[in-house]
């Protein structure tokens, strides 16, 4: 029962309170680059969530059974980035074979997930927080859903903003950053929602 409680709390806390984009500043590049339309933003979020969940599982296993077992902490960054790159490659091949429609919709964003710092950040946070296997997978899933939530909300705002009267110098990146700041303020309201 205690285990289940921790897992649920970790999930809620990664989605809302410690949102990867708005609180931890991980994955800002796709957040600014792929948030022009709700539809593409949602596909990007889903692909990232999928890769994040798999990454959490794969890196936990590698970290526990290879790196810590043989005492090789200096290989951590190199091995994690290789795992992530090959995972993204694998997911790309899988989606291409099983659902060509989805593959077309994601296009260039799929290979770019490799250099999304949210993924490597997630892989590095797991040993730092000392989660077990189940909690790690839930942490990865929660981080992905939090990412999707923030990017879809931002895309919705930006679609509406298309009709707004934005000063010439603030068009594009600056107004998106200021909007993100206001969203981050709104998300601060979630802090103190739960305590572990």
């Amino acid at each position, binding site marked *: 029962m205690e285990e289940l409680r921790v897992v649920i709390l970790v999930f809620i806390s990664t989605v809302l309170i410690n949102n990867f984009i708005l609180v931890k500043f991980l994955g*800002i590049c796709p957040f600014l680059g792929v948030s022009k339309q709700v539809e593409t933003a949602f596909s990007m979020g889903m692909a990232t969530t999928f890769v994040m969940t798999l990454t959490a599982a794969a890196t936990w296993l590698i970290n526990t059974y290879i790196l810590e077992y043989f005492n090789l902490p*200096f290989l951590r960054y190199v091995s994690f980035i290789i795992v992530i790159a090959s995972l993204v490659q694998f997911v790309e091949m899988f989606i291409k074979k099983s659902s060509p429609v989805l593959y077309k919709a994601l296009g260039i964003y799929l290979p770019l997930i490799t*250099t999304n710092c949210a993924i490597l950040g997630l892989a590095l946070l797991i040993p730092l927080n000392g989660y077990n296997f189940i909690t790690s997978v839930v942490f990865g899933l929660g981080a992905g859903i939090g990412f999707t939530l923030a990017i879809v909300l931002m895309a919705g705002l930006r679609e509406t903003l298309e009709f707004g009267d934005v000063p010439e110098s603030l068009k594009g990146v600056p107004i*998106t*950053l200021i909007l*993100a700041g206001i969203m981050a303020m709104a998300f601060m309201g979630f802090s103190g929602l739960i305590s572990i």
Partner: protein
Amino acid sequence: MFKKILYDFKNGLWRENPIIVLVIGMCPTLAVTNTVQNGLAMGIATSFVLLSSEIVISLFKKFIPNNVRIPSFILIIATFVTFTDFFLKAFFPDIASSLSLFIPLIVVNCLILGRQEAFASKNPTRRAIADALGMGIGFTWVLVLLSAVRELLGMGSIFGLTILGSWYQPMVIMILPAGAFISLGVLVGFMNVLKRRGN
């Protein structure tokens, strides 16, 4: 010859500044600029990794097969990042603990991989060095400026020294995530105004 190198060096300072013009490398820019010390340390660490990997890649560009160049670049970058991380942990443990996650995340900083792909893999080593120095300094000065603004408004100090006296009520929001987004947005907007005036 010399003119060309000077041109490459100046490129990163203003005309193609990584943060305010190219808008890459945003994650560390937002995350570590809460104090000037962190911003400066992050800028130097990133510049070091950028410089060393540009040198190595421009030297080895003929030996790296085209199909596997991206994984090779990432491996070279990851090696230097591991080196930087261990160096900071050994000699500057305070800075290492306050930057924590963002030192390893230099591996996936788009600025570094982007410069390897766009510049170091196509140009001779001396031009790559000039480019890395320009981009590194360009990245660092924006980080320092942004962190100075945030630290001054958020805590009334710069480099930990109190500048604004006790009469100043610190705007705590500036050192929180929300303040990072808003101050960077205003800074990029302000630079756009300057650029439009210049044209």
